[in-house]
């Protein structure tokens, strides 16, 4: 007989454990105020540069590849919020593996992948909130006020944004875990990150030639930034369900490959003493 009460208690205890890690990480993130402000200023700088760039481009035309100025700038703000939420943690995991400090985590009574997820979730929540506030203020001041339909569909949009962040997070984890096998994995990350940039962040992928777009729209890159941002611009339930369907598939895919790589890699880890 399965004791459901006991199982539920165990699950709740586990959730409590990872939630505590998340809270500690959130608090430590807010303790380093200058770092926090520097990250937010960087976000504001990028948005500022692109607002200027698009203003200049639209000074001689009303539409660019089917997009109005307000649409393309809001699109960029949303894609930047998603990607800068999980920006630098690849280097943190890779470093932990390379310098052996992963040993301090591996011998603790928690799952490593859940640990890094909870540890980074704290900083991700902070970055998401602060960058969203800055992005919305800058967008409203320099481009156009937020469309009211956004507020009505906010829960749906948030679900797609969170899934986009999670796919990005686990694909980064997968690349970071490759440090268990190769001498230096930073080049993989640079290439991955630039694929994300060109296939969704900087410019919507429907700007690409049609044949290329038809391939790209089924790639994981499209469901990290392009699809949620597009939904933000033009919400429909058909599009929402289609986006969510592909996001769930890519999320499970990214999660499984990360778990498999971790299991295989954990056997390879050799730690220097000291």
């Amino acid at each position: 007989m399965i004791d459901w009460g006991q199982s539920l208690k165990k699950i709740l205890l586990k959730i409590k454990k990872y939630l505590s890690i998340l809270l500690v990480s959130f608090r430590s993130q807010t303790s380093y105020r200058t770092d926090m402000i520097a990250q937010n200023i960087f976000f504001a700088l990028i948005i500022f540069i692109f607002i200027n760039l698009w203003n200049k481009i639209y000074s001689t035309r009303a539409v660019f590849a089917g997009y109005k100025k307000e649409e393309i700038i809001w699109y960029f703000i949303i894609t930047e919020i998603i990607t800068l939420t999980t920006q630098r943690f690849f280097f943190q995991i890779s470093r932990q593996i390379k310098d052996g400090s992963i040993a301090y985590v591996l011998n603790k009574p928690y799952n490593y992948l859940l640990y890094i997820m909870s540890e980074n979730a704290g900083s991700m929540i902070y970055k998401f909130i602060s960058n969203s506030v800055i992005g919305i203020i800058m967008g409203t001041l320099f481009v156009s006020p937020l469309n009211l339909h956004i507020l009505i569909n906010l829960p749906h949009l948030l679900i797609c944004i969170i899934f986009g962040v999670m796919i990005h997070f686990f694909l980064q984890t997968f690349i970071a875990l490759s440090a268990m096998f190769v001498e230096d994995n930073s080049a993989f990350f640079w290439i991955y990150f630039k694929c994300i940039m060109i296939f969704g962040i900087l410019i919507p992928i429907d700007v690409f030639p049609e044949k290329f777009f038809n391939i790209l729209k089924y790639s994981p890159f499209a469901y990290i930034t392009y699809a949620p941002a597009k939904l933000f611009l033009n919400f429909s339930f058909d599009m929402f369900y289609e986006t969510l369907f592909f996001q769930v598939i890519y999320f499970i895919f990214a999660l499984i490959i990360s778990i498999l790589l971790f299991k295989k890699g954990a056997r390879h880890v050799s730690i220097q003493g000291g």
Partner: protein
Amino acid sequence: MSAFREVKSHLVLLRKYFKFNLAASMEYRTMFITQVIGMALNNSVFIAFWFLIFKNTGNIGTYGFNDIMFIWAVSSSAFGIAHIVFGNCRNLADQIQKGELDVFLLQPKNPLFSILASRTIVSAWGDFLYGYTIILVFFGFSVFKILLFSFLVVSGGIIYVTVFSMAESLTFFMGNSKSISQMISEFLISFSIYPESIFGDKIRWLFYTLIPAGFISFVPKKIFMNSSYLLILLLLVVDIFFILLNSLVFKLGLKRYESGNLIGTRL
């Protein structure tokens, strides 16, 4: 005459640092090659971005596709050479904070020079070579062009190194300037790779003063694309000014330096 001898002896030292750092990087050959190729590929993604923009728009203000390619080439190679030769320029704050400068202060050469040259960044080779590849692909080969471009790269490299180093030296005065230094770096890099003409007149003055991105890419663009060779003199003056200013900031900061009593050796 003694100033000339001083410069010469520092150049000899720089050559030795360069050879030593290069040999150390080549020790991990696979890592060297993957980092160099990875960084060059990383940068080349922006060619696709700008190609798509120009395909749909035509010119942006006074900038055409080749202008953008040039500012990318010169800022990328300048950033590359800065980090190949003076790879420690963005690590100075950490060393000041940990009190790790003692070992350099005991050496007979200029300590700032030795600190900056004591490290190299492998991926910077990717940035450096990427710029030259852009020039060869989009502007064709000519000895004059390559020499002129190389001069502009060295000049831009000096600006990068001195600004990064000054930002890091603020640690002497503030305790920890890492965040500010990172911010200044991001501003300098970001402003040097986008067309000057997209920014309004109200902020353009910044590119020639506090964030001197103009001297890294916009003035070099005028020299290379519009044959405004007189501006070379301006770049020389600006480079010397930034070298002197950087030395002054470091010298003033050094008076406030407190050693960490760390025993270290440099072989």
